[in-house]
């Protein structure tokens, strides 16, 4: 491995953080809570989703602790059900869905497009308040005793058989949905209407493309989740019968409505992460992303196909054989645009001048783990395999490979990559590389055993298991501990770097995006004068030329 780096910091003896920037523009708590600035809202989101991430993570820790032994010894089965339900609901609706779009996307999309802000700053702030309200409501349901439906709100379990706080949690998720709708709506309008002169669709960074695709899913999918939850609430309170077989209703209808959102939701979660990976891989290979157009369209293709695969969650629920066949086929089609991305990233790396800074390490982690997660998804899309593997730990491992191995790695890659831009300071390089490696090792130790457990037939959502599964479960729990350390580290050293990190300068990575051509941290209005985009995305020759000219100017 080469020790070379493209890191290019200003002389630390003379460098200072620009006095005028979005952080120093106004002071006091109210100036943050009432802000319309997309960058400040992004920071509010970053703090809040980190908070919920660690709460969701605590539940994961408790689950793994219970599964250390075959006997149900730590908690009762009801409590265990609540643990995995709260873990799922918090991680999915309060962390994964808003993770990259609401933090990095919020911060970067206007800057990448050369705009001063998102199209609707007040709606952007409203969406954060909705998010916080949803978070508080979900925490309330937790304090009042929790909920044990699983994050899927499966009927008739959720409507007829449980006395836990289903209503409160459903209200929380309903509100979180509107937060996500408003974020998506804001992004789509911004991308359509706020691009700087010369910023054509095919000059946009791929991060913007992937967030655009995710926004389409948010806007079209989330309302269906909303109506599904409204119907669950009415069924539970008034007994209206729409999901109740005794009154002629059909529980399968709920599954259709729920998964019509919740399958596209996994693409809402992963697509923005793929955008981060495109930016990182290009920057640290010093090459334009191979097949830019194909990668851009593959995001849209994933969004489009994503709407026609939902019934693959229902193969064992009594859908007809013919529709199962069709949905199985369509599911495999999603693998095509995903593979396009992976292959194009691989070709971007080929003959690039690679360097291995922290974001790149996380990006490599993403590529490996997402590929495994994606390919096991094809296993599960095949009808025969699915009947054997569904509802086992194989599903759990598959989902976590895509979402934790994929999305969380991408999120951390993005946070490290843009940290100097967001805060003006560098994180400690050595420690962050250690964290990336620890996360990768911990992740594999946690979830690889779960593939084997699932294949051997260990069902998910039980807090006890036969003796012979213990070795693999202990491995998994040990891995979760390592993974926990891997996630604690960045939180600590990133907080540390806010005060003590090296001053980053405008463009520490020598990257080409518009966001790197302005000061770090940016001004409130991002650009003093409206920029004009006169080159393609990822044009390193343009950048070299520009830096040469600036060097001459100084000389």
């Amino acid at each position, binding site marked *: 491995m080469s020790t070379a780096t493209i890191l290019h910091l200003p002389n630390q003896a003379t460098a200072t953080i620009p006095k005028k920037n979005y952080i120093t523009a106004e002071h006091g708590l109210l100036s943050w809570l009432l802000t319309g600035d997309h960058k400040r809202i992004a920071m509010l989101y970053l703090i809040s989703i980190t908070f919920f991430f660690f709460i969701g993570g605590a539940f994961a820790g408790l689950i793994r602790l219970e599964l250390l032994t075959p006997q149900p010894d730590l908690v009762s089965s009801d409590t265990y059900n609540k643990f995995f339900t709260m873990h799922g609901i918090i991680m999915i609706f309060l962390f994964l869905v808003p993770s990259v779009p609401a933090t990095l996307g919020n911060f970067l999309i206007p800057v990448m497009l050369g*705009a*001063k*802000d998102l*199209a*609707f*700053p007040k*709606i952007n702030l409203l969406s954060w308040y909705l998010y916080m309200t949803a978070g508080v409501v979900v925490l309330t349901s937790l304090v009042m005793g929790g909920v044990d439906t699983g994050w899927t709100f499966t009927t008739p379990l959720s409507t007829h058989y449980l006395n836990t706080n289903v209503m409160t949690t459903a209200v929380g998720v309903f509100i979180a949905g509107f937060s996500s*709708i408003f974020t998506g*709506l*804001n992004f*789509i*309008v*911004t991308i*359509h*209407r*706020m691009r700087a*002169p*010369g910023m*054509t669709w095919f000059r946009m960074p791929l991060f913007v493309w992937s967030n655009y695709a995710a926004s389409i899913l948010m*806007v*079209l*999918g*989330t*309302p*269906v989740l*909303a*109506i*599904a939850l409204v*119907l669950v609430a*009415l069924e539970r309170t*008034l*007994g*209206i*019968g*729409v999901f109740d077989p005794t*009154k*002629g*209703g*059909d529980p399968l*209808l709920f599954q*259709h*409505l729920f998964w019509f959102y919740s399958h596209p939701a996994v693409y809402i979660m992963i697509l923005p992460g793929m955008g981060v990976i495109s930016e990182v891989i290009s920057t640290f290979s010093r090459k334009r992303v191979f097949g830019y157009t194909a990668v851009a369209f593959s995001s849209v293709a994933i969004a489009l196909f994503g709407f026609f695969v939902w019934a693959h969650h229902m193969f064992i629920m009594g859908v007809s054989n013919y529709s199962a066949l069709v949905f199985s086929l369509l599911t495999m089609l999603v693998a095509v645009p995903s593979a396009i991305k992976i292959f194009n990233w691989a070709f971007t790396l080929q003959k690039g001048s690679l360097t291995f800074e922290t974001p790149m390490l996380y990006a490599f982690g993403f590529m490996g783990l997402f590929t495994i997660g994606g390919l096991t998804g094809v296993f599960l899309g095949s009808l025969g395999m699915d009947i054997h593997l569904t509802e086992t730990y194989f599903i759990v491992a598959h989902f976590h490979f895509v979402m934790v191995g994929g999305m969380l790695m991408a999120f951390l890659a993005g946070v490290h990559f843009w940290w100097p831009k967001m805060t003006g300071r560098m994180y400690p390089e050595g420690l962050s590389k250690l964290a990336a490696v620890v996360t990768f090792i911990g992740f594999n130790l946690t979830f690889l055993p779960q593939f084997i457990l699932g294949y051997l037939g260990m069902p998910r959502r039980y807090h006890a298991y036969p003796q012979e599964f213990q070795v693999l479960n202990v491995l998994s729990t040990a891995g979760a501990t390592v993974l926990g350390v891997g996630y604690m580290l960045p939180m600590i050293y990133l907080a540390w770097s806010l005060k003590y990190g090296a001053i980053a300068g405008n463009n520490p990575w020598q990257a080409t995006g518009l966001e790197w051509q302005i000061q770090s941290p940016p001004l409130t*209005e991002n650009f003093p004068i*409206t920029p*004009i*985009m*006169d080159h393609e995305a990822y044009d390193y020759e343009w950048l070299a030329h520009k830096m040469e000219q600036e060097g001459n100017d100084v000389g």
Partner: protein
Amino acid sequence: MANTVATTHPEVAHHAHDEHVVLPQHRHHFETEEQQREAGSFGMWLFLLTEIMFFGGLFFAYLLYRNWYYPAFAVASNQLNVPEGAINTAVLISSGFCMALGVWAAEVKKKGFLVLMLVLTTFFGLVFLGIKADEYHEKYEKHHIPGASFSTAMFTHPADFGIKEEPIAPDMAEHTQLFFFLYFAMTGMHAFHMVLGIGILFWLTWRAHKGEFSEGYVAPIENFGLYWHFVDIVWLFLFPLLYLINRHPLH
């Protein structure tokens, strides 16, 4: 910078209007007012798209159960009050017409006419809700509100109520409850959107009265108009689906 695509640059359009006056409502992060207006209406269209998906779930449920329990849905649908529904359709279209005139009034800066049209829009909206409430009350009297007091007697023994219709089997008649639930959910969700809309109408009327929309800033009126027409259109689908299709097919 020579090869810059400058033709789409909003600045160009901006300078085209020499006598252009900057409106106080122009927000700093938009290059031009035109961009702001386009962004606003595009956002509104997208929001309406989410509304279509939201109602779509209910329409889907309705069509599914209508196919499954066709006889129950047919007899239950015959109990809806078609004259009142038809009047309501006319009332709602009048309301939408006034709204459209209101948007025109704002665009040509006729303040008095705009206020009048907004008041009329609100008035017709309230009339609609009043008639709807009367229909709901009728359902209450007929024991057609799903729940403990729901009665299928009218469908199992239609002759007792003077209804000239074939009786349907008791187990199928149970499914009329599903029809009435969907009826209340769909028209109720529609009415809820109207109540929200009427709330916004009061606010807009007050602002129009202060003259806020008479100086060329019409975006709120336009965007609300889109919303109001959307609510109308939902009703235009609900009315035939719930009240009209296949009336009296069992004769």
